[in-house]
């Protein structure tokens, strides 16, 4: 086993937030009982929705493929338990503002009968990286840190360039969330085995397993698992507990002291970052043959009676999960999917737990903090900004809708971590404002693109007309030339012929 190391890059700003994690970490991960119905959204990932391949009324088994991909950026969906497909219909999901999205609804039969073909790949080491990546894609594996980018596609993009490190992200920096912490404490070996598969797929020989200094239990069990597996390509690394050190680019900066270029990816500096949960899911799929049909989710907050971490079947309604966690307390007022800094607030607990759901946070009513005041330019926001932006200036330009200055001041580099909101004495909802400004900017770019398309259409039409005209003129000139080249006698003969014709009439 290798001891945790500390040689680190620097992160600008950030916040030391009250962790609030103990709420849910004093009991082990509980298996969430099978619900009566499962609601599996077709889009649980970044990219295009999967296409259902089952019919209503069809019986499905646990682990059976029920929706497959027909695009280059998507991920398949598997049945989380056995039962009957009773509907494929829109159902509330955890998008911002809880819209509906098409879901496959399975009525569970309670047998939880697995599909026969849940075969494991015998020895992934014998596969070529390409075959291994294809196999990972079939497991429906997506990034479980919350971004849900299809893992295989991320890895495929990564191997096209030179790589130095695989970084396993066990830095769960947002308050309340503890699913990765509990995973590392209780299933560290799965994480490490997943890392080995990833290293084979990427043909890498160095992997940093990174976690935060406030997770001694996780560090201990990771160390034990690494000692047991004895793979000296893996190095355990510890980073200080500062929010948002678990952001992908921020973590790369901390671990390698290299900045991910603006608009670029960690691969630009030779790194691939994967969440520890994703690594464990890959291990379960490749070594044990279980596709991504469950995940660990933290159910916590002062609105929950018995906060804990559950291993939940994907598609379980949040209401069912909360019931298992002792139900709501009297103070429950807000339902947040994700953490308190970047989560999404939703209005109904009918939404299902999906691949992205790392945390269900139920909070009491927000205390009244008084009305928003004007910005007094105190600069606290820029002191905590991990990207070294000047939120106070961005806010100014966002109010003025000055796109040029917004770009210049790096609005598109904002990672929406929410640090600036927390330190603002004027209580300006900066992150929400920036989110809106970004959307407006996209809209404007879209309008520009549309105008550009229209302009190009118009120009090509003009060109086409001009070309037609030129062609006609050329033909005319040709005819004239031909006419000239023919002798006058023949012309006379032609005229005579036409005269005769007329007389015949």
């Amino acid at each position, binding site marked *: 086993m290798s001891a945790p190391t500390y040689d680190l890059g620097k992160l600008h700003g950030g916040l030391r937030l009250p962790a609030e994690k103990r709420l849910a970490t004093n009991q082990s991960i509980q298996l969430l009982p099978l619900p009566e119905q499962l609601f599996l959204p077709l889009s649980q990932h970044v990219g295009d929705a999967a296409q259902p391949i089952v019919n209503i009324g069809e019986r499905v088994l646990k682990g059976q493929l029920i929706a497959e991909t027909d695009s280059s950026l998507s991920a398949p969906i598997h049945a989380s338990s056995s039962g009957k497909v009773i509907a494929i219909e829109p159902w509330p999901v955890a998008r911002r503002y809880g819209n509906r999205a098409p879901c496959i609804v399975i009525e569970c039969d309670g047998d939880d009968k697995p599909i026969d073909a849940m075969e494991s790949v015998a020895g992934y080491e014998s596969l070529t990286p390409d075959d291994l990546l294809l196999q990972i894609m079939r497991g429906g594996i997506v990034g479980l840190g919350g971004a849900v980018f299809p893992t295989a596609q991320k890895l495929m993009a990564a191997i096209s360039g030179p790589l130095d490190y695989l970084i396993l992200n066990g830095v769960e920096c947002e308050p309340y969330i503890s699913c990765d912490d509990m995973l590392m404490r209780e299933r560290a070996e799965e994480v490490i085995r997943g890392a080995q598969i990833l290293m084979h797929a990427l043909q890498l020989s160095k992997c940093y397993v990174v976690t935060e200094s406030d997770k001694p239990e996780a560090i201990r069990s990771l160390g034990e698992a690494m000692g047991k597996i004895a793979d000296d390509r893996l190095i355990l690394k510890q980073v200080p507990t500062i929010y948002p050190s678990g952001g992908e680019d921020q973590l790369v900066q901390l671990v390698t002291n290299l900045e991910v*270029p603006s608009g670029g990816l960690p691969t630009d500096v030779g790194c691939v970052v994967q969440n520890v949960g994703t690594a464990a899911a890959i291990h379960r799929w490749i070594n044990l043959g279980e596709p991504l049909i469950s995940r660990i989710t933290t159910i916590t907050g002062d609105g929950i009676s018995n906060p804990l971490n559950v291993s939940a079947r994907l598609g379980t309604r949040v209401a069912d999960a909360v019931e298992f966690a002792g139900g709501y307390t009297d103070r429950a007022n807000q339902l947040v999917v994700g953490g*308190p800094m970047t989560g999404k*607030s*939703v209005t109904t607990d009918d939404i299902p737990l999906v691949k992205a759901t790392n945390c269900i946070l139920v909070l009491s009513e927000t205390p009244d903090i008084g009305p928003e005041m004007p910005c007094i330019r105190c600069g606290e926001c820029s002191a905590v900004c991990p990207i070294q932006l000047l939120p106070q200036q961005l806010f100014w330009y966002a109010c003025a809708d000055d796109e040029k200055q917004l770009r210049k001041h*790096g609005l598109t580099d904002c990672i929406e971590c929410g640090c600036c909101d927390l330190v*603002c004495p004027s209580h300006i909802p900066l*992150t929400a404002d920036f989110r809106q400004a970004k959307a407006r900017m996209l809209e404007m770019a879209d309008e520009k693109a549309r105008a550009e398309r229209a302009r190009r259409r118009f120009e090509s039409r003009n060109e086409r007309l001009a070309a037609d005209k030129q062609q006609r003129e050329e033909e005319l000139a040709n005819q004239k030339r031909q006419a000239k080249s023919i002798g006058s006698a023949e012309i006379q003969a032609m005229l005579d012929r036409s005269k005769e014709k007329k007389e015949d009439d």
Partner: protein
Amino acid sequence: MQFSRRDAPFVTPSQSVPVIMQQVLFALIPAALAHVWYFGFGFVLNLLVAAIFCAAGEYFMLRLRKRAIEQFLYDYSAMVTAALIAFALPSLTPWWVTATASLFAIVVAKHLYGGLGFNIFNPAMAGYVVVLVAFPLDLNLWTAPRMGDLDYHYLTFSEIARYTLTGTFPDYLSFDAISRATPLDSVKSGLVGMQTFQELQTLPMMGDFGGRGWEWIGNFTAMGGGWLLLRKIIRWQIPLGVFAGLLLPAGIMYLLQPGIHASPGFYLFSGGTILCAFFIATDPVSAATSDRGRLVYGFGIGFLIYAIRRWGSYADGVAFAVLLMNMATPAIDYLTRPRIVGHVKDERKT
């Protein structure tokens, strides 16, 4: 179950504008006590007049501009302005002078520019400069600091109150008997009159570094400033910039020609230097906003204070230095933008 909806983040901010302003006022208490000890109760009367007129101006302008009166009247920012005006004025100041400064600060410098957060100039300094130009004689009436000088008539409370209300002394007192030049005035005229700084230092009014009394007020002001730094209400860049901007040129000149230049210590502990570094230049609204920008801004103020004191016609120059750098703030902010993480350095110039 239905839930209420908000935007992330769901953690409530810990700081607020009224609390910041209250803490600034709180940090001024040691300086105020020292001021009262050395220059008498005039300071309290000035503070009272300034507070009344600042509050009245604020109320009037908020009504006129149809703003939420409750919200802004209780943000305490007008009280900070009032306090800084009271510190800037001599302890013997007729009430109408204080009132003029207060009303100009709040009505013109603050609200006509858009109110809290939008004022370009530091309101207190703008108000002070207006009365400095409009009532030059009144602003020259500094009393001697309490130093147990047997020949000097230290004013009683009723004499101070009478002067504040009417601008006159009882028959047995005269302007000349009460008025004393400040150490900055004396050193300035002394140096012009070909005396060396070392000779001037032997004057009874001089203490270890600056004038007697003045330097202790400076110490107490710095105590409050240090507390603000610890509480992170202000950051270190501006105070450091002011001190560096003043002490570097002063130090270099003093080393080169110690006779004809006052020492850096003298400039540091005289007049409003320390108050400026911790409480005036640090007004966030009119200051530069990035870390590097604040260093530049502070340095500019410090340097201008030195230049005005050494070569200008005003003895102190803090107010002018601050207002001049206020004008430079937008340019400083633009030119000192930090490099955004993930960008190469030259990119920001494109």
